[in-house]
């Protein structure tokens, strides 16, 4: 869908080009080599970062969710950075006021409760790396007692519904959880024919097949850049996470820091 008038979009077809099926061995080798360069690297700053049992892992992906962590959580409690993940496509589309040299995915741990780990993904992880990212990151934690919460966002235009009243009341939160999750979600469940894609889908799939309790909360919003009203909706999700205090609405200075840097230059009204 075009985001502004006159935008030219390349339309993806569901059909697959026959020619690509006729690869010879040389092409196959090149593709394989290219595929091997597509790597996710994890780096933990302390060797025992991930050896805890009963880990409570919270992953925030997307502009609003990552900014929510920056504004409400990382400022309100004492957290330390314990590691980061770098991708072969790192540097593209960073948000949250980071420069492109900063890693797109950072892990933080609560100083007074070492079992709580936050993962803030401020870059975009491409489709072919999402599965690998999930296997590597979740594979680092002991499965015993592990529980996962994902916060993500999506444009409200992606939400399919017969009833227009509900989609106009954006931002709103919907969730999906794995079979082994016993938490009572604080918001309605996602209904057919809507789906989740991206990291949130990769994480839920991993947790479903490995029987790890996981809940993903997705915020549907019509705002292009992070705003305080959209970020506010994630507070609802945090009431069930436990042991994390979400601070009160921080000062305008802090919010400005994250919103100003995301100001989108529009050329429509020069």
């Amino acid at each position: 869908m075009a985001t502004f008038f006159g935008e030219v979009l390349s339309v993806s077809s569901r059909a697959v080009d026959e020619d690509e099926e006729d690869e010879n061995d040389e092409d196959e080798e090149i593709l394989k080599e290219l595929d091997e360069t597509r790597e996710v690297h994890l780096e933990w700053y302390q060797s025992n970062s991930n050896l805890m049992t009963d880990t409570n892992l919270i992953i925030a992906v997307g502009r609003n969710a990552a900014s929510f962590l920056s504004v409400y959580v990382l400022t309100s409690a004492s957290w330390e950075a314990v590691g980061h993940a770098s991708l072969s496509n790192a540097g593209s589309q960073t948000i949250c006021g980071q420069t492109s040299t900063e890693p797109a995915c950072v892990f933080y741990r609560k100083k007074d409760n070492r079992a709580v780990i936050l993962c803030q993904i401020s870059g975009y992880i491409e489709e072919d790396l999402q599965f690998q990212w999930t296997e590597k990151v979740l594979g680092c934690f002991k499965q015993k007692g592990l529980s996962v919460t994902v916060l993500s966002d999506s444009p409200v235009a992606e939400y399919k519904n017969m009833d227009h009243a509900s989609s106009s009341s954006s931002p709103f939160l919907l969730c999906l959880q794995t079979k082994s999750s016993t938490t009572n979600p604080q918001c309605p469940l996602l209904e057919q024919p809507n789906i989740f894609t991206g990291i949130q889908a990769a994480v839920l799939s991993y947790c479903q097949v490995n029987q790890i309790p996981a809940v993903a909360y997705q915020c549907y919003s019509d705002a292009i850049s992070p705003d305080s009203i959209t970020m506010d909706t994630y507070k609802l999700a945090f009431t069930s996470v436990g042991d994390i205090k979400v601070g009160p609405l921080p000062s305008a200075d802090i919010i400005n820091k994250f919103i100003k840097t995301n100001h989108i230059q529009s050329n429509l009204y020069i």
Partner: protein
Amino acid sequence: MFIPVEAIPPSFKGFTLILPAIAVGNVAQLAVDLIVSTLSMKRVGYMHTDCLVPMVGPNPYATSAEDAGELHTTAEVYRDAEKKLAVLQIRSPLIQSRSRKFRKLLVSWIKASEFSRTVVLSSSHAYQRDDQQLKGTPLRYLVTPAMRTASGPALAELGWVEMERLSPYPGLVEAEPRLSIPGGGVTKGLFTDGCQEELCLAVVLVFCSEGDNVPDAFTLVNHLNEWLLLVDNDKRGAQKWKVPGSWRLLFGSSHPPSIF
């Protein structure tokens, strides 16, 4: 990698496997949806692989409020013990550079599970048909040598038409005719692998164009039913397929009434 839902892996020995190829108009996936939904098949496992783009959603075949919230993933295996039928549903596109890896994974799983036969549902671009293909039925089939030996003339007796081998340069007689399935995704590769690995495999496909492909899905699944007899015909000769709830809003949300 196949991961069973329950601790004891299900047995597929002697079962028929139906799977879709991701191709033009997603016809095969829609047809598989109709089979799983109509036969109320039970989910027995997941195909967990990095070859497919991750996606999750609520239960696409929900029948009550209780099971509507169940999490479903990219590729799942369903089973009907009575009909000795297994179905692999694939719900997202293949990552192009891993297409060969995906075919290997499927072939080794089919061999290890000891399926008696495999049916790949597929589709192909209608606009790339040649003159002889334009006439008559839009449905075609292909069988591997092992399948031809096993099923004998059964498919030809049904009046089915085998997919033609076409000359790459029409008009030039010298060029050797070859199999071409434009827009068929992994179909040709899977069929070729099936021939090499001596799998008992058939491809059933329909020529179609992208758009509303629901009618194509019914055409394909009714055609398949002539052979496999998955559901009984009613008195008028029509089958009763159950459309799953996930087919709602195939073309997005409805119009906001306030715009008029």
